[in-house]
C-alpha cells in the first residue's frame, strides 16, 4: 500500500498536466468545428471529392465531419494518440524508474517481494489511466454538447471512451513489459514510444492502401477507430486480440521483472 501511495503522489503532477492537455485538445479541436459547418453544404461537397489518401492523412476516414459526433470522431484519433503516449510512457517509467534513479538499492532491499512491487506500481498506473480516461469523458461530454445543437452525442462519446480505455491498457502493459525485459532503464520509455509511433504509422498506411488491410491486426489504432465504434461498437475480434496482448504483456512484466538481475 505504501508503494501505491508513493507512486500516486509521484504521478500527481503529471496527471494534472495531462488532464489539462486533454482539456486543451478538446476545446481547441472542437473550436474548429464551426468552420466546418459554417459553410454548410459546400464543405460536404469538398470532402466528398477529396481523395481517400488525403482523408486518411487528415484523419477523416469516412466520418461525416459536419456533424458534432463525426467531428469529435476525427478529434478522437488525436486524443487517442495522447492518452496512449501517456499510458505507454507511464507503464515503462513506473517500472524502470527505480533502476533509472538508482533507488533500487533502497526499495528492493525492503521486506517486499518483486511481485508486490510490480503489483503496487501497476495498480497505481491503472488508477492514473482510469482517471485520465474519466476526465476525458467528462470534458468531452461537457464540450461536445456545446456544439451538438440537439444532436445526441453522449452515447457516441461513451463508446469511444470504452475503446480508448482498452487502448490505454494495451499500451500501459506494452510499456511495463518492455521496462521489465529491458536491462537498460534509460531506454525503456524510448523503445515503448517508438513502438507506439510505428503502430500508428502502420494504421495510417492501412488507411491509405487497401492492399495493406491485413496489417490492421497488428496495430491497436485500428482496433478502436471512431468510425467503426460508431457503426458497430467494439468488434469482438479486436477486443479478444486486445485482451490477449494485455495478458501476454502482463505475464511478461511479472515474469521478467522477477527473474532478472536488477541494475544497481
Amino acid at each position, binding site marked *: 500500500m*505504501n508503494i501505491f501511495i*508513493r507512486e500516486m503522489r*509521484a504521478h500527481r503532477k503529471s496527471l494534472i498536466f495531462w488532464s489539462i492537455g486533454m482539456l486543451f485538445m478538446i476545446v481547441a479541436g472542437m473550436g474548429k468545428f464551426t468552420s466546418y459547418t459554417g459553410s454548410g453544404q459546400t464543405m460536404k461537397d469538398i470532402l466528398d471529392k477529396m481523395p481517400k489518401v488525403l482523408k486518411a492523412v487528415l484523419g477523416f476516414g469516412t466520418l461525416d465531419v459536419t456533424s458534432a459526433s463525426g467531428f469529435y470522431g476525427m478529434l478522437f484519433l488525436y486524443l487517442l494518440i495522447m492518452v496512449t503516449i501517456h499510458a505507454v510512457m507511464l507503464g515503462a517509467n513506473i517500472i524502470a524508474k527505480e533502476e533509472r*534513479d*538508482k*533507488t*533500487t*538499492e*533502497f526499495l*528492493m*532491499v*525492503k*521486506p*517486499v*517481494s518483486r511481485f*508486490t512491487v510490480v503489483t503496487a506500481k501497476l495498480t497505481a498506473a491503472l488508477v492514473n489511466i482510469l482517471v485520465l480516461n474519466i476526465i476525458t469523458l467528462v470534458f468531452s461530454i461537457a464540450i461536445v454538447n456545446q456544439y451538438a445543437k440537439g444532436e445526441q452525442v453522449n452515447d457516441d462519446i461513451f463508446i469511444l471512451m470504452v475503446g480508448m480505455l482498452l487502448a490505454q491498457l494495451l499500451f500501459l502493459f506494452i510499456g511495463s513489459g518492455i521496462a521489465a525485459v529491458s536491462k537498460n532503464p534509460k531506454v525503456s520509455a524510448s523503445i515503448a514510444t517508438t513502438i507506439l509511433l510505428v503502430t500508428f504509422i502502420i494504421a495510417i498506411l492501412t488507411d491509405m492502401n487497401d492492399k495493406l488491410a491485413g496489417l490492421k491486426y497488428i496495430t491497436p489504432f485500428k482496433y478502436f477507430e471512431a468510425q467503426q465504434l460508431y457503426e458497430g461498437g467494439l468488434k469482438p475480434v479486436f477486443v479478444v486480440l486486445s485482451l490477449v496482448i494485455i495478458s501476454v504483456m502482463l505475464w511478461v512484466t511479472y515474469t521478467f521483472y522477477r*527473474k532478472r*538481475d*536488477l541494475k*544497481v
Partner: protein
Amino acid sequence: MNVIEINNLTKTYGKSRGIIDVSFNVEEGEVFGFIGPNGAGKSTTIRTLLSLIYPTAGSAKIFGADCIKNAPEIAKEVGYLPSEVFYYDKMKVIDVLKYSASFYKKDCSKRIEDLAEIMDLDLKKRVDDLSFGNKKKVGIVQALLHEPRLIILDEPTSGLDPLMQQKFFDLLEEENKKGATIFMSSHVLSEVQRMCTRVAIIKEGRIIKLETMSNLTENNYKKFKLEINSGIDKNHFQINGVSNLELKGNIISFLYKGNVNTILKRITEIDLKNVWIEEPSLEEIFMHYYEKEA
C-alpha cells in the same frame, strides 16, 4: 549460529567475472570485514545476498533461510547501507525515512529522531539539496531505523568526515553490543582493522584469505626495520616467511611470519645500528597479498 552462510557462490555477467566460488560464514554477533580492492567482487557478493541479483551457481543463506527464495522475509531484519546512496530527489529527508520505516511493521519515529540527532542530520531538507556526505547520513539512519539484526554496509565511510565516521562507528559498536551482526565491505583497511573481529579478503572474485583480525595482525606478522652499519647482501633475508623485502640505503625492512627465533638468529649475524620490530598495519599485510601475484 551463522547469520550468513555463503556456499560456493558464483556470479558471472556473460563472460565477464563477478565472483567465483565464494564461501564463508558470518557468525551471530560478529563484526565481519570484507576487504578487497575496487572491482574485486565485494558489491557483487553483497547484492547477491540482498537478492538484487541472482547467483549463477551456489547459494547463500541469511538467518538460515535461502537469501533469494526468502528475500522479503529476511529483509525485515536486515539493514543495508549501499556504497552510493540515491533517494527520491523531490522528497524531504523525513519523508524518505518515513517511507522507509513504513515497510517495517514497527513504529520507528522515535528512533529516526534519535539517529538524526546523533548524525547531525537536518530532516526538513529536500534530498536533492543534500551533499554527498549528508546523503550518506540519510543512508545510515535509513539502514538502522528498524533496529535490524544484521547490518550490511558497503564501503560505509566514503563521504563522511572523520568526526562523523567516529560517531557512525560508535553507533555501530552500540548496535553490535545490543546483539546486531555487522558485515562490512571496505577497501579502507584501517576502518576494518578498528571494527572487525574477522575478515575475508577477496581478490579478482575469489576469497584468498579468511582469518580473525587478531591472527592477521598480531600473531602471524611482524614488521622488521633494521638500520645497518655496513652494506649487506639483500639475499641474507631471503628465507621462508619473509615478504615485502626492501632495501633502501642502509635501511632494510620486511614482514615476517613464522618462528621469531629463526629470524632473530639471522639478524644477529649482521652489524646493526638500530632495530624496530612492530605490528604491521593491515594495509601492509594486505598489499603483500595483492603484490604476490601481480
